[in-house]
């Protein structure tokens, strides 16, 4: 509402907010906006408009994702009093198994405590009959309802700016004017276009294609072959920056990140020896796959993800490169809620208080890109990968040993630390000395082995 005496645009008692999209960003915004409003003594109404039904299995209920809730997000949510229920957690992850062509090693959680969860965004893959398993997105929506938000099932097809608010129209016939509209619509291109109309300087994020599929193995075989470990692959395959197999109840989710992932790239990955060795020999991967998709992922943040009475959050604004997108959604959603409740909802308020948070994420992603360029160099070099493997194995075998490489890999895989923090740690001279040392050692052993082999050949001749 515009205060004519001061010319400011801020929420007042009785103001209403439309949150378009009930994924993590939409729910986090709602949860915190209602919490802050209550603390501040402000009476507001929030409608969440969501097109999907998260109680469905397969695509109609799924916001396509690997389903890892990062260590940093789990800790922040716990401090906020949000503890994930048992039936939302598919598995607690306690280690990462790193697979390279040169070998495999396990990186244990630093405190031997499960602080990472795997979960399903909807109610499981197509055809899933596990009625115990609950959707993560639905759980967050329920928390918002408990706080007093109203959820509306529908797809927004029109948004129009008026002098005293923004009018929203859904395909199902709802027409309503709101004081503030939140765009938590992920990377849905059509809906992002609606926001380009009401926020002229908004430019949607740049994206690339990824791949997700689920394999049904049954709970026992998942236990036996994958355990409570997320399996991460750094293989010398084109376009793939990162591949992971994530155990979830009776399923294992495959996530392939990189650039423009397609069928051929997926097939090359599944046929790679280190990947095949993870699965039971008798399993026909194709027939064990109930669901697969090629969703988009953010590569560059949006430009000006706000305007008078409009804020875009989560994937629609800025995310974290390749990792912890839900954690980034929590950060942008909470920053938007704080600005809307405590500062105001005009473009200039949002520029001053909300934009810096998106900029921080975007800046960190630039560092992330640098880290992934280095990872690609390592991915292509057998010698460097052997050095890396040897360094991790050495660190993991010694208690109380400084775990430089292990902690860097742990934070890169889990997405818990910022890329800037990870880069800072790689600049530690001890890290480089150790990596060079281990690489030289593996080189020397290789040359010695070759010499011995030659000698053997000579003696047999």
């Amino acid at each position, binding site marked *: 509402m515009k205060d004519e005496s001061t010319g400011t645009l801020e929420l007042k008692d009785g103001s209403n907010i439309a949150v378009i999209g009930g994924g993590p960003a939409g729910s986090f915004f709602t949860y*915190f906006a209602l919490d*802050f409003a209550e*603390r501040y003594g402000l009476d507001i109404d929030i409608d969440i408009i969501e097109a999907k039904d998260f109680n469905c299995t397969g695509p109609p209920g799924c916001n396509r994702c690997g389903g890892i809730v990062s260590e*940093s997000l*789990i*800790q*922040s949510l*716990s*401090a*906020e*009093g*949000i*503890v*994930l229920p*048992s*039936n939302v*957690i*598919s*598995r*607690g992850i306690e280690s990462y198994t790193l697979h390279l062509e040169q070998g495999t090693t396990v990186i244990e959680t630093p*405190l*031997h*405590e*499960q*602080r*990472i*969860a795997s979960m399903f965004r909807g109610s499981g893959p197509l055809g899933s009959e596990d009625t*115990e398993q609950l959707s993560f997105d639905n759980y967050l929506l329920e928390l918002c309802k408990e706080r007093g938000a109203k959820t509306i099932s529908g797809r927004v097809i029109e948004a129009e700016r008026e002098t005293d608010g923004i009018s929203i129209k859904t395909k199902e016939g709802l027409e309503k004017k709101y004081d503030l509209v939140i765009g938590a619509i992920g990377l849905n291109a059509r809906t992002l276009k609606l926001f380009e109309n009401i926020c002229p300087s908004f430019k949607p994020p740049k994206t690339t294609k990824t791949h997700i599929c689920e394999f049904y193995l049954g709970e026992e075989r998942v236990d036996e072959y994958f355990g409570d470990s997320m399996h991460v692959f750094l293989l010398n395959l084109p376009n793939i920056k990162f591949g992971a197999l994530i155990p979830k109840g009776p399923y294992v989710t495959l996530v392939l990140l990189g650039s423009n992932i397609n069928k051929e790239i997926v097939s090359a990955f599944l046929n790679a020896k280190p990947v095949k060795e993870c699965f039971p020999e008798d399993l026909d991967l194709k027939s064990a796959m109930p669901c697969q998709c090629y969703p988009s992922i953010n590569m560059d943040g949006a430009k000006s993800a706000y305007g008078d009475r409009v804020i875009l959050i989560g994937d629609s604004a800025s995310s974290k490169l390749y990792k912890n997108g839900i954690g980034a959604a929590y*950060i942008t959603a*909470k*920053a938007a809620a*704080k600005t809307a409740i405590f500062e105001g909802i005009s473009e200039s308020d949002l520029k001053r208080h909300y934009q810096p948070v998106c900029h*921080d994420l975007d800046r960190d992603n630039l560092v992330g890109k640098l880290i992934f360029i280095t990872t690609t160099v390592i991915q292509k070099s057998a010698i460097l990968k052997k050095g890396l493997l040897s360094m991790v194995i050495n660190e993991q075998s010694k208690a109380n040993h400084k775990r430089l490489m292990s902690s860097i890999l742990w934070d890169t895989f889990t997405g818990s630390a910022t890329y800037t923090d990870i880069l800072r740690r790689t600049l530690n001279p001890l890290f480089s000395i150790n990596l060079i040392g281990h690489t030289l050692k593996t080189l020397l052993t290789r040359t010695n082995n070759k010499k011995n082999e030659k000698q053997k050949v000579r003696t047999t001749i």
Partner: protein
Amino acid sequence: MKSKKLGRPYKDGEVVIKQGDPGDCLYVIQEGKVEVIDESGETEIKLAELGETEFFGEMGLFEKDVRSCTIKAMGDAKIMTIDKRNFYKTIQKDPSLAYRLLEKMSNRLRETNKKLRDR
């Protein structure tokens, strides 16, 4: 069915933190219950019971002093730690993360005052 809750599992009666020990992390109960015990006198005095989503050990985040009470699991429990450094890094960027902590600490102070008054 095996619990899928996060955190570290504790058995009934297992000590989570010991009075007098140094400590620098916060604990959040993910599942089950714990009891708060004062061991400074001749006999143990049970001060409180805490349940799911509640936290303890917060003094260790703000003071350099040793743990002021002993905490024991009541039945099977799962408890997650939040390290001091992570916590400070996060509240540096988002001070509102401390709202709930302050609210609970204020509640606890109010309860203690009430107990003193009722004596």
